[in-house]
């Protein structure tokens, strides 16, 4: 079957399965969903309670301000969600920075290109959610403490937190709800935070970078360097982005008729690629937290048989786009071993940020760092017209120069001072933005 025939069949299938799509009353659907996701606390959304706690002086809310250039989006239950688009505090992901470094660097690169104000600091820990979901070796107060400590740092310098990892995003939504709904957790946490001269800060929204990217994607796509019309992209939406606390994820009628999360499918679409469907779109990638480290037969089999093969066989996909640390890792690293059994799929796997940055002309090695990927990302880039060989040659030279000390590392933003690696000094933003005097103790 040719690709067009497959598309036609899928379209017919959708019509058949949802014959009333065109006459659907979305308000009625939303009403039903509100019921479905209602909590035993009798709230439509935990935010109702959040504002009450602020009034009582129990917590500090980090509000989204006009200078964050907020954009209003929609969620599953009809509640609006506000996405701040600038003055953002980068909440990095341990797995991205450790094993897919081109993921955060693509985000920074895009922000530079679109003149978005951001801060990336050493005063951040990971959410510790990976460890928690794998081992259970934590507890609610500790998890809340880690969350609030990070949120405090962003609040203190008035940059709105943007969460890079899908698990951090889902996990923080859950922790936020717990903090808001359970006084006993706040009461246990407060003295711990006070000990560190901090208080309980909760940001008004928990925002995933993929939501920011989708919100910005039409604007970003105007700077596209390569034509993606011929690209058939399958999307895997990360479970922790939309199944964990579903009511805080953005949806858009323009993306799969509002039936699936807007990001990252909408981003792929807005960049001009053809979005393809496959029957297991809903399934998890196989990461499993502990499984990817110590139980990899599961991760490999699941990723290959339940995700990669359906995406290629049913959707004729030539790239897999996703938006989480664990999903990129699992889908990308699980394909190589399949070769030994004759499953040679080698479907390129990219994070939406890398996909977008490459399309906008980012250096695939220095910025998108695609050499950390195990799948055939180069093949994908050749298809869209990237001069892979030229970039590669220059990068190999750069590596050699770095090794021999002939080149200095290049940076996306000004490197930190030594003091920043030790203390979080109050005037750090002023220094970083080049506004402040020198720190009293620096040379």
């Amino acid at each position, binding site marked *: 079957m040719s690709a067009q025939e497959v598309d036609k069949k899928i379209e017919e299938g959708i019509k058949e399965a949802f014959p009333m799509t065109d006459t659907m009353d979305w308000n009625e659907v939303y009403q039903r969903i509100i019921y479905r996701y209602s909590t*035993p606390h009798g709230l439509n959304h935990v935010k109702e309670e959040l504002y009450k706690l602020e009034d009582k002086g129990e917590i500090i809310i980090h509000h989204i301000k006009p200078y964050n250039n907020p954009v209003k989006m929609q969620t599953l239950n009809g509640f609006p969600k506000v996405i701040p688009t600038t003055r953002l505090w980068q909440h990095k992901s*341990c*797995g991205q*920075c*450790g094993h897919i*470094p081109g993921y*955060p660097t693509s985000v920074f690169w895009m922000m530079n290109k679109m003149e978005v104000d951001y801060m990336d600091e*050493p005063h*951040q820990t*990971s959410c510790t959610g*990976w*460890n*928690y979901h794998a*081992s*259970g*070796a*934590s*507890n*609610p107060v*500790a998890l809340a*403490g*880690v969350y609030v*400590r990070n949120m405090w740092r962003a609040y203190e310098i008035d940059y709105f937190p943007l969460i890079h990892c899908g698990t951090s995003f*889902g996990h923080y939504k*859950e922790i936020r709800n717990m903090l808001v*709904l*359970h006084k006993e957790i706040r009461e246990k946490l407060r003295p711990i935070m006070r*000990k560190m001269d901090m208080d309980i800060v909760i940001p008004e929204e928990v925002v995933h970078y993929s939501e920011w990217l989708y919100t910005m994607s039409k604007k970003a796509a105007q700077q596209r360097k390569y034509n993606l019309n011929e690209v058939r992209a399958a999307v895997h939406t990360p*479970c*922790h982005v939309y199944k*964990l606390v*579903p009511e805080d994820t953005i949806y858009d009628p323009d993306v799969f008729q509002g039936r699936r999360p807007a990001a990252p499918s909408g981003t792929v679409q807005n960049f001009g690629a053809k979005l393809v469907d496959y029957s297991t779109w*809903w*399934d*998890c990638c*196989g990461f499993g937290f*502990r*499984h990817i*480290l110590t139980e*990899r037969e599961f991760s490999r*089999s699941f990723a290959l048989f*339940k995700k990669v093969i359906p995406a290629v066989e049913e959707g004729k996909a030539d790239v897999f786009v996703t938006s989480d640390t664990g999903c990129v890792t699992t889908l990308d*690293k699980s394909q*190589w*071993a399949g070769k030994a059994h004759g499953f040679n799929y080698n479907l390129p796997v990219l994070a939406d940020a890398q996909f977008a940055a490459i399309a906008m002309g980012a250096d695939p090695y220095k910025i998108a760092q695609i050499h950390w*990927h*195990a799948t055939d990302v180069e093949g994908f880039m050749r298809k869209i017209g990237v001069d892979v060989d030229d970039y590669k040659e220059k990068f190999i030279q*750069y*590596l050699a120069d770095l090794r021999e000390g002939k080149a200095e*590392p*290049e*940076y*996306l*933003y000004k*490197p*930190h001072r030594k003091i920043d690696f*030790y*203390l979080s000094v109050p005037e750090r933003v002023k220094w970083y933005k080049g506004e402040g005097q020198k720190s009293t*103790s620096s*040379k």
Partner: protein
Amino acid sequence: MAQAKGILQLPDDPRFLDMAYDVQGPVPEEERNLLSNLNPQDREIAIKFWESVKSDFRFNEYLRGCLNCGVCTSGCPAAKFYDFGPREMIQYMMRDEVDKIWEFTNKKVWACVQCYTCSMRCPFNNEIAGLIMVLREYAVKFALPSAKEILAPYRRVLYTVLTMGNQVTPDMIQPDSFPDWGPQAVEESKNMDVYRKAIPVDLMQRTDIGWHPSLQTAVEMMTIMIESGVMDSLKGVDKDLYDMIMDIYEERKSQLEEIKQKWEKGELDESELPDSWLDL
């Protein structure tokens, strides 16, 4: 109507409905005791364990009822691979089946991949994956053998997360432990230094940490872990690791205090500090 009379009268609370059994509701305590296969010692811990889980503040919020419909298990990735399913767990919980929950916690609960598919699909809106996490948390707290077994190969990750707040490190990908990640990973691990240098963000250029947190951040993180009781639970599962982390904490805390004091007085000579506190 004549037919309607014969219909069994069911209790009002849907939490007690269970179509698989003639008698509805939880099995009485005496009966459960008689049926137990556990030795008295285990039985005692099993009861204590279950009572702790049930008294957790999340329990009633997460468990709202069960149709026994199996929707959770039908979408569960782990159920496709292992002898495991969320439905059985929820059913045991609904009926207070201490022995079964004990067995489930010791043998099966670690199979779950925490995808939250079950939670999103459950018509009763149970927070099933959250309940699994509650079982795991208490398994660690009770230092159950299954928790110890699970945590053993996980020591390094625990060490990194508890001392630096990062969970994985670039250099943990070694060819002998990750041969299935392909030749690319092998190449990277051999030349990790230069590959990391070529990342255009200064915080990400080390091989032993995903990004470089500040000393203050690391100490604050450890403070949270100690004050919230995480370290206390770790003590029961891995005493050596506990001792090591506590030593590191004391040392770093005093380093931080010294640097902070000097900085506040304007007496800090930065040139005396190494580029990274990790090299202190």
